[in-house]
């Protein structure tokens, strides 16, 4: 029974999380968190609606190890993201900055809200009038 318990414990502890940590070992918790933050915020260019953390493609793997190297070298979030944006364009980031190509994306919610307000007001006026 004890043997069985030990086996179960060993199996349970070798989870995928453990494997991921073996693959990208960090000396500090902070770097680990930084790495996870960045790969969650970046698009895999091959499978475009997945981020780097979720994608299992070979390309995402290369990007992760490249980001890993930069994080270990002590680069900041901004530096790592800048490196990738310089090479792949703003499309690579899931959190694009306000820019000429992206202003419509950022302003669209406000624009839609304004349209909704105008429609709502005209409907309200109509019903109050009758």
């Amino acid at each position, binding site marked *: 029974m004890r043997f069985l318990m030990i086996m179960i414990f060993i199996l349970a502890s070798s989870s995928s999380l453990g494997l991921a940590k073996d693959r990208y070992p960090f000396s500090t918790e902070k770097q680990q968190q930084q790495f996870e933050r960045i790969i969650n915020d970046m698009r895999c*260019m*091959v499978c*475009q609606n997945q981020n780097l953390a979720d994608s299992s493609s*070979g*390309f995402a793997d*290369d*990007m992760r*190890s*490249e980001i890993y190297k930069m994080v270990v070298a002590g680069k900041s979030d901004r530096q790592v993201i800048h490196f990738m*944006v*310089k*090479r*792949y*364009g703003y*499309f690579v980031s899931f959190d694009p900055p306000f820019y000429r190509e992206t202003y419509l994306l950022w302003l669209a919610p406000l624009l839609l809200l304004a349209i909704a307000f105008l429609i709502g007001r005209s409907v309200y006026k109509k019903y109050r009038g009758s």
Partner: protein
Amino acid sequence: MILKKILKSLMPLLIFLVILAFLVKSLHRDPHTVPSPFVGKPMPSLPGVHSDLFKHHVTVLNVFASWCLYCRAEHPLLMDISETKGLTMIGIDYKDEPKEMRIFLKHYGNPYSNIIADPNGTIAINLGVYGTPETFIIDKKGVIRYKHVGPITLNDWRDTLKPLIQRLLRGV
């Protein structure tokens, strides 16, 4: 008043037309082709590659691999392109076995005057490459002038790449 009524009844049609315009536009757009921020910029420094390699001549830089089927498809055209006078063709062998690559080039011909091995894809990432094949056209000053994603078709070559290369060779 009548005008307002007409306008109101036309509203759904107008909205439909706007949506239609967007749909028609996206029909001709390939979401996998992302514009490269490198076009118009000098060649970035690549780990283990001397930057002079891309200067003083017009270069076609082709990212390929022996395991890549689309590369095989565009290979005959690359062989033709490599015969263009004054043009240098450099290959980046992306995540490949050197042995496999040699067999590939022996079998299909070697259009490259220089081959850079990129066994773990680091050079490709530094170039903003996200698949094979990809092709860059670099002018005599080492500035990237064009990037083509995917295999080059005969039409791409005739309509876009060839005119650009001819212009660059003339030194414009």
